Structure formats: structure tokens, C-alpha cells
């Protein structure tokens, strides 16, 4: 593939622009203290419009833009599970997140593990939640790099040095500006998304002869493909569709970066308004998914990856390249690259906070000052990004996709401690740890049993667990995270009953019922600590 000069120039210019923005972001809503609340949560002060952009920019990753259409392109209807997933996620956590926001605001918690530690009086349980968060997030950051890599490959750039440069710059401005950097850049990201998708969704179908023709090609294509891929759901994958959508919807708000996003908001009304408006992004994601269908009608051929197999992640970039003049393709590619930077920054900050609060301060330096904690988080955010980069450079890309899928399943194992914990502390801390371990084992074991036909591997292959492995005579498949969380809940319940019968000590709950309703007034209170409202973005 020859080098695409115009596209590359536009991507470089926009990348440079958002990098400057990232460095300057430290002056936006200037920090009033050196505490972790400022670097990691921008002082918990974002209001409705800002937080809609920020949380939207945080949750919708470049990888989503590339991989969801690729899944539809390769597997048909099952790939559209992302739509019910992103449609139900916000109503699902609408009431849960305001409780989390309130209790974290009351006590100054920065991570979900902070809350778990105080709620159940168990640093060990908090450690399990923190480690799960870091482990699940790492491949997720790596996948955002894959999004950038797909764009680079389509522009005719090989080698890993551009990727390394992009990540060094990202690491530098995140170090300096903290969460303010991705927050400010998310405005650019989201505006680019709305422009590019708004144009593409009308322009490409016109060029391809209309939606009727596009879906006609899609139906015809999947009549000729092997079983397991189809233009509609099949008896075998229908349950996978449902459990994957529901499991992913619960999982997304257990991820550390989502919690970070929610905690940057000013008050409960902002959380609610933001969650009510975020489905607009979901609608756009649904449209983005359809690029996979358009690519079938446009007879797009994915580029060959480094492993000699077609890399379907290049389908969307190739589609843009075939359909648009090169300056607009450049904009679309910049959208994907910037779309990777924002979530990657959020994720590395959130993982770093988990390390600082629940490992460093808990076990290594209990006397660490606020300033020291901020410094540790800043440094760890660099290490996390370096780790993610190594992931991409050393591990087969397809395998890192599978690891991210596994990440979704294991983050779900923190659901009983975090989400149920917000409502009840009936479950015993010892039982929650046992349940977490059982859920982790169940998820990993079912993941191990699943083969991956794309890689020709007999094991570690995917998230669709065939129930026939359990000796059942059925071709039904279920999401491994769903199996894990069911095992987790059963074990947590059973062990709690046993431990309560044995009258085992339950630890002290440092939260009070009223803490779950704490709020902050819309207008600045008399207290002078509130940062000023931004005058512009």
C-alpha cells in the first residue's frame, strides 16, 4: 500500500493540535490543591454539558469504532450485540451511579475499591477489586492502540515507531494535565465523530446505491458463509447475543475509567442528566456498526495483517479510503486516532489511581500525603501505558482482542462487591472474596475451553461458551462473563450464609445510610473551595 500523503498530513496536524490542547488543559478549571482529586478527577466539578462530552469521550473508544463494524462484517447479526449493550447500559446504572457518586463524594473515594474497602472493612477485598480493574484495563488500553495501528496500516505506514511516538506524547500530556487533558480533548473527539459520521452515513449509502441495495448484499453475503455467521440471529447464538449485551452493560460501569468519568461530575443531577443524554452516543455507535454492512456491499477487502491473515480491523479505514476524497478520509482517520487517545488516557489514570489508593497507600506507604499520592499516580499512569504498548508490540493482535474480551468477563466479577455493595452489606466480606475467586476461575476456565477458529487455536479462543462442554445436548452458547457472575453470586450467597451461621466477624461499615444521598447544590455554595465555572471550552 503506497503512502497516503494528504491523509497523513491531516492526521498529523490534528494530532499535534490536540496534543497542544492536552498540555494546556492543566490550566483549564485550574487545580486548587495538589490532591489526587484534582489530577485524577479535575476537582469533581464538571457540569452537564461538559460531562456529557467527557463521559461520552471516555466510554466510546476508537476500538469500538473499528471493531464493532469489523464484527458485523465478519460474523453478521451477532456483531450487532453492541447495540442492545449500549442501549441498556445507561438506564441500567441510572440509579446505581448516583449512589456511587454520593458515597464517593462524602468520603473522598477516588476508586470503586476505596468504596469497597470502607463498606466491607476489608483491604483484601479492595485489593481484589483493584487488581481486577488494572488487569482488565490493560488489554483495553492496548486495543485502542490497535485502532491507531489499523489506521496507520491503511495509510501505508508500517513499523511501530509512529505508534510509540503517539503514545509518548499521550503519556506526557496525561502526566502533566491529568484527567483535564482527555476531558478537554474529548470535545475535539466528539465533534469530529459527529461531523464524520453525520456525513458518512448519508454519503456512503448514496455511493453504494442506497440502503436497500446495501442490506441486499449483506443478506446475500451471509447466505453463502459458514454456519455461525448469518444476517439474523440463529438458535445457537441468540443466547450469546442476550448474555453478551447484558453482561457488557453491567461490566462497562465497573471498569475503572467509567467510575473515574462519573466521579468528575459536580452533583447527582449532572450524573442523571449525563446518563439520560448518553444514549445519543449509542445511536451514533449503532450507525457506526453499519459501516461493517456497508463494507460488505462495497466489496471492501481487509488488509493482510502481520500474521498473514486478513485483519478485519482495517475494514472501516479501508471503506473510508475507498469512498471519500483523501482530505475527508484524513479527518475520519484523525477521528479514530484521537478517539483512541481520550479513553487510553482515562484508562491509564484510573488504573494508576487503583494502584496508588488500594495498593501503595494501603500496603506500602500508609502515611503517604495527598501530594505523594498524586505523584505516584502520575508515574504509574506512565508505566501502565508502557505496559499496554508492550502488549501490542509483543503479542499477536488477535490474542489481545481475546484478552480484552476476557477482561470484560473478569471485571464483571467485581459486581457483587461494588454494585450490590452500594445497596446492601448483607454479603459477607469473606464470601465476596470467595465468590470473586470462583467467578474468576469460572470465567477463565470457560474461556480456556473455547477454541478460536480464526487463530486455529484449540484454547483461549473467545467469550461464547458452548453449553455442550458441560455435557448438555444443545448448541446454545453463553457469554463467559455471565457464567462467571452467576457462579460468583451463588458462591457469595452460600458462603455468606455459612459465615453468618458461624458468626464470623463482618468488619465495620464506615459508610452511613445518608452518605448514599449526599449532594452538592447546583450553584456554588458559600464555601470558597469551589473552582470557577469554565468560560469556554
Amino acid at each position, binding site marked *: 500500500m503506497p503512502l497516503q500523503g494528504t491523509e497523513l498530513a491531516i492526521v498529523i496536524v490534528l494530532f499535534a493540535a490536540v496534543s497542544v490542547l492536552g498540555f494546556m488543559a492543566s490550566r483549564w478549571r485550574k487545580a486548587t490543591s495538589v490532591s489526587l482529586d484534582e489530577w485524577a478527577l479535575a476537582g469533581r466539578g464538571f457540569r452537564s454539558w461538559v460531562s456529557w462530552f467527557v463521559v461520552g469521550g471516555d466510554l466510546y473508544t476508537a476500538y469500538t469504532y473499528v471493531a464493532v463494524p469489523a464484527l458485523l462484517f465478519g460474523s453478521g447479526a451477532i456483531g450487532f450485540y453492541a*447495540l442492545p449493550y449500549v442501549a441498556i447500559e445507561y438506564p441500567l446504572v441510572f440509579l446505581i451511579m448516583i449512589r456511587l457518586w454520593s458515597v464517593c463524594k462524602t468520603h473522598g473515594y477516588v476508586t470503586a475499591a476505596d468504596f469497597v474497602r470502607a463498606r466491607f472493612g476489608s483491604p483484601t477485598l479492595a485489593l481484589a477489586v483493584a487488581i481486577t480493574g488494572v488487569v482488565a484495563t490493560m488489554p483495553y488500553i492496548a486495543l485502542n492502540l490497535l485502532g491507531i495501528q489499523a489506521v496507520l496500516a491503511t495509510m501505508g505506514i508500517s513499523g511501530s515507531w509512529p505508534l510509540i511516538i503517539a503514545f509518548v506524547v499521550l503519556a506526557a500530556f496525561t502526566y502533566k494535565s491529568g484527567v483535564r487533558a482527555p476531558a478537554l480533548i474529548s470535545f475535539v473527539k466528539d465533534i469530529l465523530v459527529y461531523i464524520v459520521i453525520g456525513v458518512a452515513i448519508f454519503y456512503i449509502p448514496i455511493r453504494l446505491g442506497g440502503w436497500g441495495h446495501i442490506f441486499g448484499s449483506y443478506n446475500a453475503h451471509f447466505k453463502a458463509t459458514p454456519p455461525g455467521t448469518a444476517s*439474523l440471529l440463529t438458535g445457537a447464538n441468540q443466547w450469546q447475543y442476550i448474555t453478551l449485551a447484558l453482561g457488557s452493560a453491567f461490566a462497562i460501569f465497573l471498569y475503572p475509567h467509567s467510575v473515574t468519568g462519573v466521579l468528575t461530575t459536580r452533583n447527582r443531577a449532572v450524573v442523571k442528566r449525563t446518563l439520560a443524554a448518553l444514549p445519543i452516543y449509542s445511536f451514533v455507535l449503532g450507525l457506526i456498526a453499519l459501516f461493517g454492512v456497508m463494507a460488505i456491499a462495497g466489496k471492501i477487502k481487509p488488509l493482510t495483517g502481520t500474521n498473514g491473515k486478513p485483519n478485519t480491523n482495517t475494514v472501516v479505514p479501508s471503506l473510508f479510503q475507498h469512498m471519500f476524497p483523501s482530505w475527508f478520509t484524513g479527518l475520519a482517520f484523525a477521528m479514530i486516532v484521537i478517539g483512541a487517545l481520550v479513553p487510553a488516557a482515562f484508562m491509564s489514570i484510573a488504573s494508576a489511581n487503583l494502584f496508588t489508593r488500594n495498593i501503595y497507600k494501603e500496603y506500602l506507604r500508609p502515611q503517604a500525603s495527598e501530594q505523594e499520592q498524586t505523584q505516584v499516580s502520575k508515574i504509574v499512569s506512565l508505566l501502565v501505558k508502557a505496559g499496554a504498548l508492550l502488549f501490542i508490540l509483543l503479542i499477536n493482535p488477535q490474542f489481545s482482542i481475546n484478552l480484552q474480551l476476557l477482561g470484560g468477563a473478569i471485571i464483571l466479577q467485581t459486581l457483587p462487591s461494588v454494585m450490590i455493595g452500594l445497596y446492601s452489606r448483607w454479603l459477607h466480606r469473606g464470601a465476596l472474596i470467595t465468590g470473586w475467586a470462583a467467578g474468576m476461575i469460572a470465567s477463565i476456565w470457560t474461556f480456556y475451553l473455547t477454541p478460536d477458529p480464526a487463530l486455529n487455536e484449540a484454547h483461549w479462543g473467545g467469550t461464547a461458551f458452548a453449553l455442550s462442554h458441560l455435557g448438555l445436548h444443545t448448541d446454545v452458547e453463553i457469554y463467559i462473563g455471565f457464567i462467571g457472575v452467576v457462579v460468583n453470586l451463588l458462591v457469595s450467597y452460600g458462603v455468606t450464609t455459612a459465615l453468618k451461621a458461624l458468626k464470623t466477624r463482618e468488619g465495620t461499615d464506615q459508610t452511613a445510610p*445518608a452518605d448514599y444521598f449526599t449532594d*452538592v447544590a447546583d450553584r456554588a455554595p458559600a464555601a470558597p473551595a469551589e473552582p470557577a465555572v469554565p468560560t469556554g471550552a
Partner: protein
Amino acid sequence: MTEASNSQDPSPPGLIHPTTTDRSPWNWLLLLPILLPLITVIYNRDNPHLLGFPFFFWFQLLFTLLAAAVSGIVFVMTRRRS
């Protein structure tokens, strides 16, 4: 319940406690956008088409708008006027 009940972890200034419950009958509406997208038998079909879209696609796209509408209604109806 007041802030005095968590003495070892004092609350920062500026916090208010205008309510002691999130309960409201309006919250039940949220079940609609959560459950409907999970019932695949409703939409796992090709016809009727709309603007060239198979039913499977256009109907599911509506779920996102339903989520926004229902969450918006619940937000407005459970908001405390101050």
C-alpha cells in the same frame, strides 16, 4: 441521619442532604429500555423494512432513543424542585 454518624471520616464542606431516598414509582419505567432490547424474539426478523433497513436493524436503533426518552422522563419526574 446526619454527618455526625461517620465521625472518623468527616465530610468536606458544601455537601447537602436534601433527600433520604431515591425511591419513586417513576423508576419502574427504566425497566422498559432495559428489558425490551434483551427480548430478541421481538426483533430477530427481516421484515418489515424501513428506508431499506431490515427490521432487525432499524428497530434496535430505536432502543437508544427509548433509553434517552425514558431516562429523561424519570430524571424530570423525580427531580426535587428547590
